[in-house]
């Protein structure tokens, strides 16, 4: 896919036999860089001369299935010579990634280079043994673009380090309906009591038998009613603070009182029924 081609046809014509000058330096001439889109012929695509003294002004765009071809003639001093090291070095200054492509070779670009945000620096490195000064200069910049729709396999490798923080997401607290609505319904519920009382009054409710009842059996009636109210009081205490073991004995006492006083009081009521008063 990403085919890299870096070729160095070496001019061995003139001066390979010339003795090496002591303080000479490595360099190159006749260099060109070409980016060939896939399918374009050997002369298709973009091609530009590069110079050993000055890098190209604008970065080269390099996408998808392009082939990059760098051709140059290496020199020691001013004579063409094959060096021990002749590399095209790609370096990303931000991440510190670097890779070298020795001339002459054809290789693919590593995955890690496909996702770099900035153009990488392409340098030509020429060096050899002895005292000749080696050459290492940036010759052009390469901006590697890729089709964002094609997913690339990630180059993630396991490394020990800080892991992303995790904060537990709590369930929401239960919420109440707006207080106005609640109060409206509470009002409706409480209003049912006056409505009930009004209906009873309309039907002619009265307490006409109360004096009679109190006269004939004052104690049972008072105690019976009090025990009924006491029951509700026990329930209220159970709701607010008591536990079951406090409720049960109290309920047993009040229940016994209610049973005894209730039978007397209801006997009085029966007496009124038998007398034809109810």
């Amino acid at each position, binding site marked *: 896919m990403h085919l890299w081609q870096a070729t160095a046809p070496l001019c061995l014509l003139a001066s390979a036999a010339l003795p090496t000058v002591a303080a000479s330096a490595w360099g190159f001439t006749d260099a060109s860089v070409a980016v060939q889109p896939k399918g374009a012929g050997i002369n298709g695509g973009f091609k530009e001369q590069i110079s050993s003294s000055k890098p190209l002004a604008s970065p080269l765009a390099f996408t998808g299935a392009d082939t990059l071809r760098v051709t140059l003639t290496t020199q020691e001093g001013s004579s063409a010579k094959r060096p021990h090291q002749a590399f095209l070095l790609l370096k990303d200054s931000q991440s510190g990634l670097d890779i070298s492509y020795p001339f002459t070779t054809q290789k693919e670009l590593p995955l890690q280079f496909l996702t770099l945000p900035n153009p990488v620096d392409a340098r030509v490195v020429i060096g050899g043994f002895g005292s000749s000064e080696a050459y290492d200069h940036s010759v052009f910049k390469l901006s590697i673009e890729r089709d964002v729709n094609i997913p690339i396999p990630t180059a993630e490798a396991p490394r020990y*380090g*800080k892991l992303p923080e995790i904060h537990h997401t709590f369930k929401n607290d239960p919420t109440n309906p707006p*207080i106005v609505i*609640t109060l409206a319904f509470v009002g409706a519920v409480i209003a049912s009591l006056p409505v009930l009382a009004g209906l009873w009054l309309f039907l002619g409710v009265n307490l*006409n038998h109360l004096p009679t*009842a109190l006269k004939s059996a004052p104690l049972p009636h008072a105690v019976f009613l009090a025990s009924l109210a006491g029951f509700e009081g026990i329930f209220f205490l159970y709701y607010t603070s008591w536990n079951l073991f406090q409720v049960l004995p109290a309920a047993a006492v009040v229940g016994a009182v209610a049973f005894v006083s209730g039978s007397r009081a209801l006997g009085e009521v029966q007496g009124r029924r038998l007398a034809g008063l*109810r």
Partner: protein
Amino acid sequence: MKWCLSLLLCCFLAAVNALSSSGSRLLVVLDESTEKSAYSTLWSDLEGRGYDLSFESPKSDSLSLFEHGERAYDHLLILPPKSKGLGPNLTPKNVLDFLDKDGNIILALSGKSSTSSAISSLLLEVDIHLSNDRSAVVVDHFNYDTVSATEKHDVLLLNRPGPLRPDVKALFDGEGVLALPRVAPQTLGNTSPLISPVLRAPETAYAYNPKEEIPAADDIEATGSQLNIVSALQSRNSARLTILGSVEALEDKWFSATVKTPGGKKTTTANREFAKQLTAWTFKETGVLKVGKIEHHLASNGEVSVDDLNPKIYRIKNETFFSIEMSEYAYDKWVPFRGSTGDELQLEFTMLSPFHRLALQPTGKTETSTVFSAQFVTPDQHGIFSFRVNYKRPFLTNIEEKHEVTVRHFAHDEYPRSWAISGGWVWIAGLWSVIGGFLAFVVVWLYSAPVVDKLKKTQ
């Protein structure tokens, strides 16, 4: 009183066990033919730091890493043998067993002669690779010593390495230039977090077989920073294996050599200091972590009584406080641990998977340790949780702490009462209006006289 005693004991132990945090018996494996005296400064430096050095030839019959099934030495330093391999007593399996039993190893290589296949297969076990022909040498035409390698450019001059990553503690940094003659390069596999480079070759460096005139382009396997000059492995039991590509860098000659880069000034090498750092790290004088007291309790403003410390059970949504003491060994004593700036000690509150993973902040300091702490609310999920501190970083010994606690539901009497919930008021009002209605009905039923029916009256 108690801590006074333990401090005294610590001092006593430190005095007895001179330096390394894991023993002082060091075995040096070197050929008889190798000039032992060439490394005399290294030996005296190591002895000065409290190691008991024993020297053995790889071929010697008495050489054994184990005695009665236990390690006979705490540390191992292997210099490259001249002969083919390391002999029958130092097979890759033996060496890995030594590593498994918490022994630490420095393995020095040399680019002068080809490395034996036994060493190569040992390194393959830990995903460190030597070049295919095992006789590659790193050269760099830009960073070589012009004094000693004018022609061959195989004495690399490099700065001391900085931190591996911004968030990794730098244990090998410092001023000065390192001279590394005839380096046998290593490349590291990408899939293991246990191996890490200590010193990498510069980007213009490459490796070639000096027996070949000019390397074919296809023979160059790795270049630049993919070539490692020094690499390190710290296994899961925190035992350490360091591969040093250039054994000559440890020689007396290079400990105080005067070197000069092309176009640079003459300087003396910092090899001696680097050798100290490298041996100190490998033999666990640096980068060793220890966990002290671990405490957790319900968060509170005041002092926490002993009874409330490290409870076995928490409730959901409890505000909880956790703290851990960490010390780091620095050559001869325990000092408060300080992580690097981009790094964090993290606390996980886990049940199968972490519900919380939080940074532990340094909040206090004792004489020998830093107290890291975090405060958080337990998740709204009951179950068996654990406080976990799983701190694994390159060059630092592994810390894995796990403390189990139960997280329970709200108890029945810990919920808010119904009158505190405004949505429940309607139901409460309904209940009490029924009760009121019932009492009124009882009174009415008991005492109401029947209404005199008009129809009945007329009858």
